[in-house]
């Protein structure tokens, strides 16, 4: 794209303004978190005596270690199981082109439009009937199901892009469907798989509505689901509240920064197909 000088400079300025606007709320949280815990800070201030101790206090009083453990427990089950189910289904729909794959595709797409709120109340009673209410399983199983529409469509989009000749070549060599899947398709699918894994990790870690409704003890929810609990406990201390919220955000930012290359890569591969 060829642009002239003024447009380039104007463009840069706009971009920088937007970047600052994006980052300010987070920087603001940091500045508030560093104030002395029993004060009511005013706006964006940079204290000369940063109270890093607030983070320690928030970590202990907020039981953050236990919250992270609980979130990790949920993630460890939700993400791998979802990936497996979605990849298998995506393969079947995108590559095998089985009979009824078009119907199944539409069936999954409709699931994308169902808002969680429409399901949360019946989900509550269903989970109660299964006897897993108020445990992490109450969030794990429904999340796997709720992620299926997006994940299946995502993986299908990848498999659709893989040329049929590859499978046929493997088949001619005498490989069974399963072998072909394992040795040829899976390695190819790795970028799409890792991008999906990151997305599912983020969505699970940040899950709010389901844990709040289905798990009564805030300490057994996800870290995001326990944020209202933080608000209740620390409502009188803005610095502690912000410190607690920041502690919760840090793992997601870390994961994203570390894996962003894979992530953007997968997006670039045009996983966004109609």
């Amino acid at each position: 794209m060829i642009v002239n000088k003024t447009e380039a400079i104007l463009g840069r300025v706009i971009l920088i303004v937007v970047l600052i606007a994006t980052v300010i709320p987070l920087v603001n949280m940091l500045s508030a978190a560093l104030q002395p815990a029993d004060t009511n800070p005013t706006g964006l201030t940079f204290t000369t005596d940063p109270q890093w101790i607030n983070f320690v206090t928030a970590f202990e009083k907020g039981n953050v270690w236990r919250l992270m453990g609980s979130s990790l427990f949920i993630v460890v089950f939700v993400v791998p199981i979802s990936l497996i189910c979605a990849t298998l289904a995506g393969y079947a729909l995108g590559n095998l082109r089985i009979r009824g794959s078009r119907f199944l595709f539409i069936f999954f797409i409709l699931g994308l439009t169902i808002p969680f709120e429409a399901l949360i109340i019946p989900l509550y009673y269903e989970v109660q009937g299964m006897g897993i209410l108020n445990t992490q399983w109450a969030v794990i199983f429904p999340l796997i199901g709720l992620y299926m529409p997006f994940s299946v469509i995502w993986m299908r989009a990848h498999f659709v892009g893989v040329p049929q000749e590859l499978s046929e070549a493997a088949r001619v060599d005498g490989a069974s469907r399963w072998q072909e899947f394992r040795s040829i398709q899976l390695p190819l699918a790795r970028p799409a798989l890792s991008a999906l894994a990151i997305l599912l990790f983020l969505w699970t870690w940040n899950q709010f509505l389901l844990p709040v409704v289905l798990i009564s003890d805030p300490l057994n929810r996800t870290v995001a689901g326990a944020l209202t609990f933080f608000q209740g406990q620390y409502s009188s201390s803005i610095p502690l509240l912000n410190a607690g919220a920041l502690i919760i955000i840090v793992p997601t930012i870390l994961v994203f920064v570390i894996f962003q290359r894979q992530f953007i890569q997968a997006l670039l591969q045009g996983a966004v197909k109609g």
Partner: protein
Amino acid sequence: MAISRTRARLARGPVALTAIAATALLALTACAPGGNAPVANDVEVSTELTTDDVVLTIADETGFPLTDELAAEFTKQYPNVTFNVTRDTFQNLTAAAPKLLASDTPPDLIRLPTIGDTVQDGLIANLDPWAEAYGWDKWSEAQLAPLRVNEDGVRGSGSLYQLGLGYSITGIYMNKTLAAQLGIDEVPTTIAELEDDLAAAKAAGILPIMAGDLDGVVNFVVQAAMNQYNDPNEMMDWILNVPGATYDTPGNVKGADLVRSWADKGYFPSDINAIDYASFVSRFQAGEGLFTFNGNWAAADTQAKMGDNVDFFLVPTAEEGGKHVAMGAANSFSVAAGSKHLNEIVYFLNWIHTDPTARQIVTDVTGAAPGGDPAQEQPTVEAGSLIEKALEMSAVIGAENGQVDFMANATAGIYAGSIIPESQLLVTGQITGQEFVTRVQDFYAQELAG
């Protein structure tokens, strides 16, 4: 020929699917959900504490550490009993309470501000058998009455379903330093005097009333105003869902209009709808506002932050020498019908009302009256302290029979669904007192009907 046969087969697919779906839907709508309330545990009433190791679960709200202290003291006295206290925000807890109680592992004790449908659904335990065994008939009946529910589901009489961890009283805190600046050396005893003080503060550039309504707490002010003009018995009937009771009374309208006039005169903070409970308390304690309407539970903390510079008094009456009316309620807790430790948890409740150390903890931590037998010795309080004032206020209200429950407890949904949003409009001068009262009454009628 093959083509038409295939086309016919393809066409049959979606048609068959739709037929199946329709039948399934019809079948489902034909069978009704629910109707499977948990069966209450049948247990023999005992007033002896077991010697087995027991873990009791308590579901409580955030920001009120009383249960932690009581639990710790109980475990100290009876080491075989330990507690697991879970906390959640007030709104999460009230939304979750019926579900928690209906689950297979309900908490033994739960903070339950509004009874709602829990009694008729068989979710909370009837405490009458234990009341008889422990002899609670010696306790103040006026305190226990709102905790009873009769067969028709009306509160105020019948079987006992709740007990209070402390029985609260509300009033006004005054910043004595600011008052001195305005030349006020006594607390107001009539509404007229109160209004004079408010006007003086406003004129001098001091915030007259520190209040907040992000989470509805300005209703301490609204109801306090209503209390001085309405018939407390009518208000109690409405709160207890007695059939035929209405909120739309001239007294209530007058009270709401009074609050509206205060809003119009700028007596409230300009950002009132962004201030929540914790914020308005901490701002008052930091010196902002001449008056604040709050309850005894804030007394200990306020005294710690403000020392001798604060006073606590009952809301002034409309006329000189009139009867005092104040909101007060049990810090109500209920025992789950499905609890596996009914005897133990009720023993704990009885202990809270009778053990001297427990009673002292209740008063020290929350400034509330400990309830129980009025003949029993009251906890010691520091002379001249806010807590002493609070207990005195409780005594006055008790003697004048002016205790009224919080209107927010009238039904399960009325606080979040109507009182909070409408009060937010009232205190920013957007609706009149009559509109406030009418809308709340409409919501009440609709919720009770359906």
